[in-house]
């Protein structure tokens, strides 16, 4: 039972404990498996959606109906899936937790506690999500990373004429920063024997090969069966040179079990290599592990790139329903505050049925120390506009800038062009995980629509609406936030911070205030490391092709007050709120039109700006999003700017 006395006791205890902690060893790592239980085959693209992933029990014995059933549900063989594959994919992203500087619209450089990108750097610099498929993420950087990248490699500089963004795109790498090949192990073979397709390898020394390690067997000699030299036709010529360890600690008649392992000499299903043990005739037979990619990193690269690379907002994340998302946070420390031992976490705000471990609340789970990495694992929740932030000392870390955007795209985006959306939503009811049944689940938000509009797929949608009511053409994440310059100065200069008097003076849309919000390019800041960094990659210009609709994924992470955003001219069509479709339990849409919305910190809302009327919203016209909280139309002392941006009809 809860015991707050212990908490009281604990706080001073932790304080003392932290003061006496030795520095922990660095333990940076990244994780991005190429396959998992849920995605057994490499999943580097999003398949179309016609039905949920068909599941089957992993063993014949049974999957949980009675005690002793040892299986669990796995995707059925791909040949039985519709349309021929399992749904979703694996997505990965790496971020740094540290510090950095941003440039406010009045020119002030503001110190931040902040997250920065450690994967998808080129995409982030373009204002795109940094979320990647494994085949992009699991790619070591081919050259030499430079502090300040991607800005440094792009040639960004602070010259006499002001900042130059350099040549955007020169740095085109989107993989994980720091990722390196594993070290290859090599050992000599004493004996190698074959029973059926299973090959037992006995080494001259204890084996350090682990289960599933890819290995290469090589050597010279002749095949016993036919006397041909190894490598010639008929003796291991043209066969793949690598296999995968299938058993370790194999008892054998020669040495101790820890010197032996086994593998299955299989080159394709049902096809096995025979005669491999014949290389045993050679005194040169060796086994080597492959220099694989399993998440080992070079910490120097992570520090080179991660220190002072803070972004506001924090790196953008976006993925699709049915995805598995591996998010690695690497805590690089805050170089401007060497007095702090600050941990960081990721709180995926709004994740339904969360586990404590991956909820990011340090009190209820674990917090990541400096020099360490932690990989958060999420199965994509229901589609919607979420957001994320650090949950360490929230009044401090959020105010200081550790806030970011995150959204999940609906299955409905993957419905084939021309296929009925209503039927696709009906198909979702056939998997209890993706079903939404108002009668049995009070938190069901998108039951089948009350009216079947006959809408068909092929577009982009905010939610699985089944009626096309959330269709849009272009989307813009838009995050409202506020900076209190006094608090940031105090936060940089080792002074005690006061929360009661916190008062925001910069009112930010995607980390910038007007007129920076309408600067179409990445925004730079020269930081205390002397490097120019891409500190604020996201403009907030809402470009709408004439006659089209824009989805605004609006979130608010102000830590001090409610914020209002109004649209001058184009009505705001509110279709979702707090990452849920606005629909009642009977399937009636509850969307509404307004010209202003008000959000608290910790809320999100989906608005469609409908410019389909070209007469009212002709090409070339400009409208405004701004706050009617008039004192928020300022940049600290400048009585001009603040929470405002432009909607441009192209």
């Amino acid at each position, binding site marked *: *039972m*809860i*015991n*707050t*006395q212990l908490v009281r*006791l*604990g706080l001073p205890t*932790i*304080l003392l*404990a932290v003061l006496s902690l030795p520095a922990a060893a660095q*333990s940076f790592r990244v994780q991005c*498996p190429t396959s998992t*239980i849920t995605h057994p085959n490499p999943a580097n693209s999003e398949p179309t959606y016609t039905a949920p992933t068909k599941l089957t029990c992993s063993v014949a014995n049974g999957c*949980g109906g*009675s005690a002793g*059933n*040892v299986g*669990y*549900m796995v995707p059925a063989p791909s040949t039985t899936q519709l349309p021929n594959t399992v749904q979703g994919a694996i997505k990965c992203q790496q971020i740094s937790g540290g510090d950095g500087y941003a440039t406010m619209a009045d020119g002030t450089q503001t110190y931040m506690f902040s997250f920065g990108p450690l994967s998808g750097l080129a995409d982030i610099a373009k204002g795109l999500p940094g979320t990647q498929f494994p085949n992009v993420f699991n790619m070591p950087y081919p050259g030499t990373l430079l502090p300040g990248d991607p800005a440094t490699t792009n040639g960004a500089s602070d010259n006499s004429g002001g900042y130059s963004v350099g040549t955007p795109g020169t740095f085109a790498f989107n993989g994980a920063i720091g990722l390196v090949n594993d070290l290859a192990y090599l050992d000599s073979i004493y004996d190698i024997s074959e029973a059926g397709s299973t090959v037992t390898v006995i080494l001259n020394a204890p084996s350090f090969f682990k289960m599933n390690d890819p290995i290469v067997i090589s050597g010279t000699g002749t095949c016993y069966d036919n006397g041909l030299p190894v490598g010639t036709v008929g003796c291991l010529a043209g066969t793949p040179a690598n296999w995968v360890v299938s058993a370790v600690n194999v008892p054998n008649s020669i040495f101790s079990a820890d010197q032996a392992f086994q593998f299955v000499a299989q080159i394709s299903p049902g096809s096995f290599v025979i005669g491999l043990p014949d290389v045993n005739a050679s005194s040169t037979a060796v086994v080597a592990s492959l220099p694989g990619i399993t998440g080992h990193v070079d910490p120097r690269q992570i520090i080179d790139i991660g220190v002072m690379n803070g972004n506001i907002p924090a790196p953008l994340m976006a993925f699709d329903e049915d995805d598995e998302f591996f998010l690695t946070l690497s805590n690089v420390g805050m170089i401007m505050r060497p007095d702090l031992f*600050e*941990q960081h976490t990721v709180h995926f705000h709004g994740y*339904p049925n*969360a*586990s*404590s471990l991956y*909820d990011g*609340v*340090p*009190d*209820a789970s*674990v*917090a*990541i*120390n400096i020099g*360490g990495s*932690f*990989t958060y*694992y999420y*199965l994509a929740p229901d589609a919607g506009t979420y957001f994320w932030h650090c949950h360490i*000392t*929230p009044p401090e870390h959020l105010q200081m800038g550790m806030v970011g955007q995150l959204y999940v795209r609906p299955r409905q985006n993957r419905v084939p062009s021309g296929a009925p959306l209503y039927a696709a939503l009906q198909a979702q009811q056939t998997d*209890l*995980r993706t079903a939404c049944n108002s*009668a*049995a689940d*009070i938190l069901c*938000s998108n039951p089948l629509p009350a009216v079947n509009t006959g809408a068909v797929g092929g577009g982009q949608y905010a939610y699985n609406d089944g009626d096309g009511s959330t269709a849009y053409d272009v989307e813009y994440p838009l995050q409202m936030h506020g900076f209190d310059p006094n608090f940031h100065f105090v936060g940089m200069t080792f002074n005690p*911070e006061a929360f009661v*008097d916190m008062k925001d003076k910069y009112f930010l849309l995607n980390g910038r205030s007007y007129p920076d919000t309408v600067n179409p390019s990445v925004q730079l800041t020269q930081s205390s490391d002397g490097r120019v960094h891409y500190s604020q990659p996201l403009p907030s210009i809402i470009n709408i092709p004439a006659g089209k609709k824009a989805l605004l994924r609006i979130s608010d992470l*102000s*830590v001090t007050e*409610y914020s209002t955003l109004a649209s001058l001219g184009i009505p705001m069509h509110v279709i979702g709120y707090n990452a*849920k479709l*606005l629909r*009642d*339990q*009977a399937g*009636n849409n509850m969307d509404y039109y307004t010209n202003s919305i008000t959000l*608290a*910190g910790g809320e999100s809302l989906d608005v469609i700006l409908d410019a389909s009327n070209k007469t009212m919203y002709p090409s070339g016209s400009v409208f405004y999003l701004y706050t009617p909280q008039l004192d928020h139309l300022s940049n600290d002392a400048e009585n001009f700017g603040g929470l405002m941006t432009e909607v441009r009809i192209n």
Partner: protein
Amino acid sequence: MSAQMMKKVMPMNRLLSLMMMVGALLSTVPALAAAPGITSNTSTTGSFTLTAQAAYLNQPDGNQVYAWGYGCSVIGSTPSFKPTLPNQTCNTMQVPGPTLIVTEGTSVTVTLANNLPTAAGNTSILFPDFSVTASCNASTPTGVQGLLTCEAAPGGSVTYTFTATTPGTHAYYSGTQSDLQIDMGLYGAIIVLPSNVPTVCGSLGVSSSSTNGLPVTNPGGNAKARAAWGEKEFRLAAAAYDHPGSCYDREYLFQFAEMDLNIHRTALAQVSDPKRIAACASGAGTPGCSLQVPTEPYHPNYFVINGRSMPDDMDPNFDSVYPHQPYNGNPHMHPGEEVLVRVIGQGRWQHPFHEHGNHVRILGRDGNLIKSVSDTYSPTAGTGTAALAGPLLFTTTTTPGQAFDGIFYWTGRGLNWDAYGHNPGSPDLAANLPCVPDANGYNTGAPTAINYFEWCQDHNKPLQAMPFGDVPSGGPATLPDANIFTNGAWYSGSPYLGPDATNRATGPTSAFQPSNTQANPGTERGYAFMWHSHNEREITTNNVFPGGMFMMMLVDSREFVIDESN
């Protein structure tokens, strides 16, 4: 939790006061929350005699804050408490005021005696959701007509009568000089219970043979599970409204408010001022017998839930340490239970109340159930289509003077790994439990099992690639060396839910590094979800983090017996 933050912001005298409080408080027995209140403190149900007077509130920084609050008048008889909780009391001053619990349709009478310092002048109560008749229209007691309602003069009293027309949670608060009196603490709640509880919601009491009540897919299952573990009933009703969409298993009441210490100090200084006391000796209304407390500019520095700041809010109801703050904020639940969250904004600011763990379905506001246009349910006939239309929110704004009712649940559905860490190869029988999905996918057919309401699609599915301990392997995640973690006080010690799974994952001692303060001890090992104001600066107490509007919702596996009354 950031110990570093404590270091940065906490003056040493406060730290010392915190440490000294530890010894004083270790003797108290923790208990849980519920939504305690009184059904009367006279001989008539629905009839209340309250008093408004002054006392001091305890805050975790060691401050004693001078405040005004409503309480039970000694003139009434013994209060009738609901539910029954240990040490229950209705003091003559408490913040929030006594929670008044009545049934829909009841004629409610509230007599308020003004025992505030004479210089404070008149006081009153507004019941904004009801049509009130006050004693300004009657002979006794003689109220004084004020701007908004009938008021009680110093030493006098006033009586309000109304019919509790609408079920749900409602606010009451002072209607006299509200800018001062509400900040001082004159507010409280009325809970109106529905008169036509739908049959499908079942009835009060736990029973191993229930066939009505939640969950919808296996009616009565939750009551059977409570009965199996000997858990007591503490609900006020089986439904929040006369509607099948409002059934619930547990309930909690949270009243959000702020306090500006300057207002309280100034009020105390003025009521203690000898000149004012002398003037007031000649009676209320004497020139000089009044307060001039500035309430602007407003700089609140205490952000309280039920009058307490974190961590005090997680201490028991009626804890003797807080004689004038009897109600806590310490919610617990089991997977699959539906929790009724009753929330009132009582201050003058809005607070975005963020419930970690899942969304909340808003049922209604100020007793107004939000129904779909397609809803045809008839409460009296108990027939028709029932469909709600309130929004689903992960951040529920509290608005001054407004109450809302919402339903929260947690099941672990969609995690894609077995939260119980079931391991079919284990010799531990609890690691081998079956999971038989009901029509909604949950293991609700086994109310006595510790994995009652497990999400079966992930049953046996591993989380960790290579775990330590007796949990399955082969999952997607590799957890790093525990030495690069800092563990939280509410961390269960493993990714898994409940003591059985955590013991299997970490060993029976569950000694995790570097500092385990065990707010979530070995017998519990629940998932803790922080429920807090997302205006994050409000999770502080007088500039100290952590504090303020901050509590933990503990989702406990079934083997941990949630006892609201121990």
